[in-house]
């Protein structure tokens, strides 16, 4: 047996299908003439489970090499910048109650631009300018022109 990438993916889907299928048994029974809550999910889960098995079989016949810790860390290294961007976005959402959309947006866009574009003094100035123009501009359009009440943080009350 080759424990390659597709094998683990198929395994993940099989576990997911099993868990969700088991969860359908806790859904209420239908009354007369009603579609049961579990009918549609089960219609989906059965072929999904079958295809997961097919993928598992395919993973053994495809000749794909076994996944190793080294190949996984290599993939992580290749994609380090996207992962930092995800972390920054997580931080932006997590700190929304404190920083609000305006301050949080300014900080998020500035940091993302620096992570992706570079940290030289010239770039820092450029990124600060881009963040200020586009974040404040769009914030103003949504909150002042369209009347959308955007989240404000505890640090800066704007409404």
């Amino acid at each position, binding site marked *: 047996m080759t424990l390659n990438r597709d094998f683990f993916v198929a395994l993940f889907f099989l576990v997911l299908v099993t868990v969700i299928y088991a969860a359908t048994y806790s859904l209420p029974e239908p009354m007369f003439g009603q*579609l049961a809550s579990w009918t549609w999910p089960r219609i989906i889960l059965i072929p999904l489970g079958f295809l997961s098995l097919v*993928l598992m079989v395919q993973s053994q016949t495809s000749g794909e090499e076994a996944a190793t810790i080294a190949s996984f860390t290599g993939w992580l290294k290749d994609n380090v910048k996207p992962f930092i961007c*995800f972390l920054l976005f997580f931080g932006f959402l997590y700190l929304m109650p404190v920083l609000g959309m305006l301050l949080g947006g300014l900080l998020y866009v500035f940091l993302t631009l620096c992570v992706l574009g570079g940290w030289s003094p010239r770039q820092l100035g450029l990124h600060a300018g881009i963040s200020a123009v586009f974040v404040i501009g*769009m914030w103003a359009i949504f909150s002042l022109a369209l009347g*959308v009440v955007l989240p404000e943080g505890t640090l800066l009350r704007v409404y």
Partner: protein
Amino acid sequence: MFENLVLAAPELFTLSTMMLMMVGTVAGLLAGAVPGFTIAMAVVLVLPFTFSMSPVQGLATMIAVYVGGLSGGLMSGILTGIPGTPSSVATTFDGYPLARSGQPGLALGIGVWSSFFGGIFAALVLMLVAPQLALIGLEFQPVDYFSLIIFALTVTASLAGDQMVKGLMSGLFGLLIATVGSDVVFGQPRFTFGIDRLEQGFAFLPVLVGIFAFGRLLGDVNTSEKAHQPLGGETHVVHINYLAAAREVLSRWTNVLRSSAIGVFVGVLPAAGSTISNVLAYDQAKKASKEHDEFGKGAVDGIIAPEAANNATAGGALIVMMALGLPGDIMTAIMLGALLIHDVIPSPSFITDEPTIAYSIFLAFFVANFMMLVLQSFTLRGFVLITKVKLYMLTGVILFYCALGMFALNNISWDMWTLFFFGILGFLMRALGFPVVPLVLGVVLGSIAEARLSQVFARSDDIMVFLTRPWSLFFLLLACFSIVFPIYQKHRGKAWWAGFYPSLLLIVMAYPVFLMPGTIRPVAAGLMVLAGLIIAVLHLRRDRTPQSAE
């Protein structure tokens, strides 16, 4: 008809109405171009302004916003790979690759002209056969809708390409995601595992934008070299050659006509809409094309089909709204509300009772498409500046805009978290070799399919109804042929049996058409059988000729 047009023209062609329509078209173009700002939001924002206008003026303005919005989605779809609206999802499949390959001007030009021709086709259909076509919409029952959605879902098989198993799994996973939240029958929590937030389910727009925006943008900037490239490659001047683009579109007129017809047909069906039509038209274009291997890499036909279809859908939806008083989608529902505010009640006799208003709407739809063509030329000039911006700068700003737009959608922070979670999911699925488009289709169509299925069961628990209703049988048979189509395409011209696919398709599809009411469709069924037999005989003869020669 011409008398009515003459009566309606002076009502519509006033300076103030034309100005309002121009403003409406620009507003729609901008709304369609900003991811997360839906056309429906733009039409709703315009609605209060129409209260003080005459019915013709108000509806003309709203139609202009609607048409502008449908076309505006192509700008962001082609230039950033993020569909501005769900109706331009399929435009990104080939529009973005063509723009990235250094031809953003051609991609945009083709998109604009396809939208225009699709809209004009729908406007002509609207004027000529509105009442007759609307009656087909009346024939549709929930069972037929469900089968139509199943057919739409089979598109995933052809979108999956070489990764058939992963593509189908991706589509099913999308359907499964759509089941999370409150169930459509009882309204009770389903698969929430005790997490209160999950009871709201996942709004499909944040899912769609998350998967497309994060996955695509962050996938493009993982190295410094790629991050510092401009979006349009190393091309420094983006020139939109409208004449060349128009020639390109017109040379593929069969695709324009087919996609527009699909768009109008889907628009006629209440609650189907351009979300479905653009994907269906793309799929049919791919199946019909001799260059199907180019689809997904920047095929011209792949841009024409969804753009012609989504604009044509607007015409179809207007047909049903006016002839039957049924809203085909959210936009026509809002327009219906606007008509009611002005004491105008659409009904089967609306076109004969209120010819001035009805034909003004026909004309407004026609004129709005011309306005869209002209005004989009100007707005595009501003929008193409994006192609000169470095990718990493766009990434930072667009991701923030996406978060802002998703929050504004329902004014809840949960939608931003949905955007984030599905951004990660989209990124991981791409990395694991899963096509993400079937996943999006599954999420978009999943809840509609379940709602229709529950309506079927509310009427009867006899599942044979799927096979006894002609339209349902028609779509289910079409779905079967659609699933095996990639296999046929692979063996076309190589395997002997593949030559019988078109004739078998025609003969089998003739059966449900024969069961449909009226006289025209049974006659059409007879012609389909005849055509199928002729193709089969020709194939047999062609097959024998070389053997006899040997």
